[in-house]
């Protein structure tokens, strides 16, 4: 559904994305995981034609991104990291405007607006100005707007950034429901648990490069399923093991308190880069 070949973007001397190659299958939830500045948002901006790549090409639903703008724009829905709703319109008017921009016939537009307002549980607030909405409500409305024209591919750029844990869980449910309804989803996140909970496959990006690719389970398997975490006076220590038995045996040989736990994607990231996701 999405094919990326050698996508590259430079900002002056800074290589924001470097020779990115990736294939995302239909109805997959694919996560681009990495710290701030890893190149995730730049990748999404290139795929959604908001930024021109320096090199490389990309195809979405069989259409070349740089050449077939109109078809690609009909095929994609985008929820950017920042709020980009018209604050002076109501929730219903924002969706209405989107439907008009996508040339939806009036009757279908009206039905779809009501259906999506119900989907994101904003039906009762539909007539209120968006400027009065909370962050979570705006985020949900942005998702509804991205779905208005029934896109086959959805780009969600840090969809839960700045949301409280409860709203974040609701957003996850929405993402799963959209995927169940047939959407292919590319989401970027720097929340480890989000990628773990939602994504069929994850690509880990660091400094503009894709450094690992696979399902969360495969990536964890690659570095070891269990972690023995301790503290040696200078800082935290991590040792990764393929089986619980190996981890327990290692812990037994270690003096001081240690914790044995399952590997997370953050451990994978640390193992690959020597840094934590937030660093």
């Amino acid at each position, binding site marked *: 559904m999405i094919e990326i070949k050698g996508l590259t973007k430079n900002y002056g001397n800074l290589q924001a994305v470097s020779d990115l190659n990736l294939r995302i299958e239909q109805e997959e939830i694919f996560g681009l995981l990495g710290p701030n500045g890893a190149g995730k948002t730049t990748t999404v901006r290139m795929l959604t034609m*908001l930024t021109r790549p320096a090199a490389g090409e990309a195809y979405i639903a069989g259409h070349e991104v740089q050449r077939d703008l109109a078809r690609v724009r009909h095929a994609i829905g985008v929820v950017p990291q920042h*709020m980009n709703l018209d604050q002076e319109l109501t929730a219903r008017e924002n969706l209405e405007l989107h439907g008009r921009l996508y040339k939806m016939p009036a009757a279908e537009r009206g039905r779809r607006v009501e259906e999506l307002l119900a989907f994101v549980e904003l039906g009762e607030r539909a007539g209120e100005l968006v400027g009065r909405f909370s962050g979570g409500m705006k985020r949900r409305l942005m998702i509804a707007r991205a779905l208005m024209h029934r896109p086959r591919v959805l780009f969600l750029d840090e969809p839960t950034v700045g949301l409280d844990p409860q709203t974040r869980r609701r957003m996850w449910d929405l993402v799963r429901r959209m995927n169940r309804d047939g959407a292919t989803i590319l989401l970027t996140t720097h929340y480890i648990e989000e990628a773990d909970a939602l994504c069929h496959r994850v690509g880990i990006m660091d400094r503009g490069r894709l450094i690992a690719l696979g399902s969360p389970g495969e990536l964890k398997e690659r570095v070891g399923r269990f972690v023995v975490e301790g503290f040696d006076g200078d800082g935290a220590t991590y040792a990764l093991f393929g089986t619980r038995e190996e981890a327990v045996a290692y812990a037994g040989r270690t003096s001081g308190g240690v914790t044995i736990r399952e590997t997370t994607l953050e451990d994978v990231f640390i193992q690959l880069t020597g840094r934590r996701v937030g660093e």
Partner: protein
Amino acid sequence: MRELFFGWYPIIWEEMVYWRRRFWLYLAVYMLSPLIFLLTFGYGVGQRLTMLMPGGVSYLEFLVPGVVALAVFNNGITSVTVRMFYNRLHFKSFEAYRLAPVGNLAVWLGFAVSGTFRGLLAGGIVLGLVLILVPGFACAPAGLLWLVAVAFSCGAFGVFLGLCLRSFDDQTVISEFVIVPMTFLCGTLIPLERLPGALQELVWFLPLTPAAEVLRAGFTGGPVSLPAVELLAGWTVLFFVLGIWRLNCREE
């Protein structure tokens, strides 16, 4: 053609939603400065300026088309510039047009026509005021057609400026270097013949000068100067080309 229509129409629709919500505010705002100009310049200082007027017309007769031109110019430009500035840089909602299957020509046209409508609303309000406050004032029908042309040119100017702004400071620069000088120098409040020597020629390089000239001739039913029309058309084409160029530069 269908693509173009469906592209620009939603932008106008959005503008009309703003109108519906804030019509009375627009009415009050667009009425205020023309009313002040008419009262201070027209009925105040203007009463004593008859002898300075070229062609022997009363200052009030001279002032009315100038105030209409000013209202169209200021509001046609500012409405689009401010809307684009906030949509692009503050609310980021301009991105919605960039992500939609809408061409740059349609986006340009949508915002230019929005500015045209605001300019026409402001101009219409001033004309209404004048009909009440200035006894004996009559507007030739051709003047209304020229009003549309001037308003469209102002809308086009507003789109270009709106796409150039990058910060709040830029807004101040535009206000101080574009709007204020043109307000006083382009033959709207003071006849060009009364400006200092070289300035009389230089102000023809400003877009409001031909706009005011065309409106003045149009309202009085006199012959409209061809060079002024050509200049107005030239400015509009230039704003169109510059606006499309800015839209083609994707924001990084």
